[in-house]
């Protein structure tokens, strides 16, 4: 039971971390390597609003998500748009922006181990004999709510439908009057907001460090490679596969083998199904 509950939590955490990255790639075919930086930006911004400006916790969270979302959109509108269509340049540019954001925090002295966000609800609860803190249960709730909201958004709103249209067929959607750059800005802004949501619910479990940004990026890429870039179901499949394989490895082999297992999955996926478990990169099918 312990493995099931904590495996579920870890899987949802991975899905939350990867969802923003997957959304951006699914819509704009852009691998946003600044994703991890936007994640910690949301964490540090929330901490600053809460502890330096004295804004209440909920206000700090909303404010930081909005700011990160605006920054994400601005990154595409003013920087990435200039290298659009050149995948290597897009990756290098977004990674450079990400490193600049993260190292800016290090340079400004955000390197203490005491940068932490409080849990939404303190305390813990026992489920079938397994004691688990409320924050982890909230993460499961937020993860499920976010997936449902995204599905509703992409299937029942005009903007969401335009995102799917671009993802399915760029040229056909342009003929229908959908502007791809505007859609990409929206996708970057939404992807960044998702990174922000993930940050504010996950970071109360530990502390905010610059290195977290790099690790979140690696986890997001791992989930997307295994699950399939551009596929929502793939993100979930990848997250659950990695989440449960990690906890099973920790329980039955040893925690230090967890990373080996992740890398093994990536290698096997790339050999056996390069587009990922549910990825359909080369097919004209639904990707969002």
């Amino acid at each position, binding site marked *: 039971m*312990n493995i099931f509950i*904590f495996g579920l939590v870890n899987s949802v955490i991975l899905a939350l971390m990867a969802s923003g990255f997957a959304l951006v790639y699914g819509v704009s075919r852009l691998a946003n390597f600044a994703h991890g930086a936007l994640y910690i930006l949301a964490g540090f911004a929330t901490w600053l609003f809460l502890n330096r400006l004295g804004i209440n916790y909920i206000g700090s969270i909303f404010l930081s998500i909005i700011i990160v979302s605006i920054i994400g959109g601005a990154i595409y509108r003013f920087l990435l748009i200039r290298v659009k269509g050149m995948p290597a340049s897009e990756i290098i540019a977004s990674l450079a922006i990400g490193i600049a954001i993260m190292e800016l925090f290090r340079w400004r002295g955000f390197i*203490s181990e005491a940068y932490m966000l*409080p*849990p939404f609800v303190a305390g813990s609860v026992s489920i079938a004999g397994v*004691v688990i803190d409320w924050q982890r249960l909230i993460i499961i709730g937020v993860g499920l709510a976010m997936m449902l909201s995204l599905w509703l958004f992409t299937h029942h709103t005009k903007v969401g439908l335009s995102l799917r249209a671009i993802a399915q067929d760029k040229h056909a959607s342009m003929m229908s009057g959908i502007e791809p750059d505007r859609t990409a800005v929206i996708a970057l802004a939404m992807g960044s907001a998702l990174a922000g949501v993930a940050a504010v619910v996950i970071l109360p479990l530990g*502390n905010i460090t*610059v290195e977290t940004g790099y690790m979140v990026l690696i986890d997001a890429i791992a989930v997307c490679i295994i699950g399939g870039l551009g596929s929502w179901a793939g993100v979930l499949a990848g997250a659950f596969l990695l989440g449960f394989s990690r*906890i099973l490895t920790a329980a039955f082999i040893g925690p*230090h083998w967890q990373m080996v297992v992740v890398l093994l999955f990536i290698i096997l996926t790339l050999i056996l199904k390069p587009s990922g478990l549910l990825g359909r990169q080369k097919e004209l099918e639904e990707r969002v």
Partner: protein
Amino acid sequence: MKNKSLVSNIGIRLLLMLIIVTFLCVLNPKLSVAQPIVLGVPISRGYPDGVDAERGITLAVEEINAKGGVNVAGTMRPLKLEISDTRDLEPVVPVAEALLAVERLIIEKKANFIVGGPIRSEGALAAMDVLSKHKTVSILSAGVLSPAYHKRIADNYDKYKYCFRTTGSVVPMIGGAIGTFESIKAKKGFDKAFIMVQDVAHARAAGNALKEGLEKKGWKIIGYEIYPTGTTDFSVGLSKAKNGMAQYLIPWFDMPEVSILMKQWYDMKVPSLPIGYIHALQDEGTWKATDGKVAYSVVLYAKAGSVATKAIPLSEKFVPAHKKRYGMEPRSEWTSTSYTVVYILKGAIERAKSLDPDLIIPALEKTDMMGTYGRVKFDPKSHQIIENGDPKETAVGTWAQWIDGKRVIVFPDKIATKSLALPPWMK
């Protein structure tokens, strides 16, 4: 004509004044601008350990300069800091970066001495050859717990005699830790432990030594797990500790994510006392940041001094001085060691009456002074600081427990201010 004589008049007066000033300076060294002694500080500035060490060194240098500087054979010379970022604590940064920083300090910045780091053992060990090549005396005061450092000095004294270390080595640390656990065993009857270590060289070495040492003493090791750096879930290990009825949880981590371990331990109410090298928990701000979930955790400081104790009078002066200067108490053990290292060097320079390494080395070997972590003496063969548990005799480490938002010293007995407390769910 009148203008010309005015100019020459002023010129003669200026020349006279210059001669008088020069004359006075030659006669009275106190009036001259003495050449500073340059301390090169190679540290990882992007990490708390580096910043902590820099703060300790800076505070000591400011204090010394405020009192006139260092007396070198009758001349008061100020200390000048040249700090270089080694980035050696950053992942995937090659050792060469640290070596470059050390060499740059010596060649470009003309550092007379190197103090502080590099902080990672790998960087410090590689830097030994650079220090030897340039005949530059270095005293490590942050990180580097590898026993290989002083072994190299002892094995090849002539080559590595320029290297000294005040941080200690993991070997006496483990010896001290086992002694502490035995002391608790005698008082509380605990003999079951669960060891959790980070997947880095020093922590694995410590974990192996602890397991072996405790088993030899008749302890039952319920589990021994190694966690990759950056692990964010410890639930499996904690459940194993709980189910195995471990009375001790012995973490050995220097990664910040260890705060997740402590929060999970608290939330899961695991009936095992966390006691070990939990570096992230040394910080004064940890209690507030974790909403008190570090309560009852016992944290090892490789060297005392960053938590004030009456048993070491200098620590009682150092901690308030740090708080006044930086607005907070020292965050880690490396602040205390790095503060003291400047005074160690000052003492050696004043005794040697010179900056010549050939005179400084024997002077450092004869060091015998009180520091913020006890009495400072070096083993003359290995240049390793001597430590055994009595601050009046040698350097000491310390164990502090988080109680009611404060770090209180519970071990070693000679400097303890309170006795060990157990969490309510263990009673």
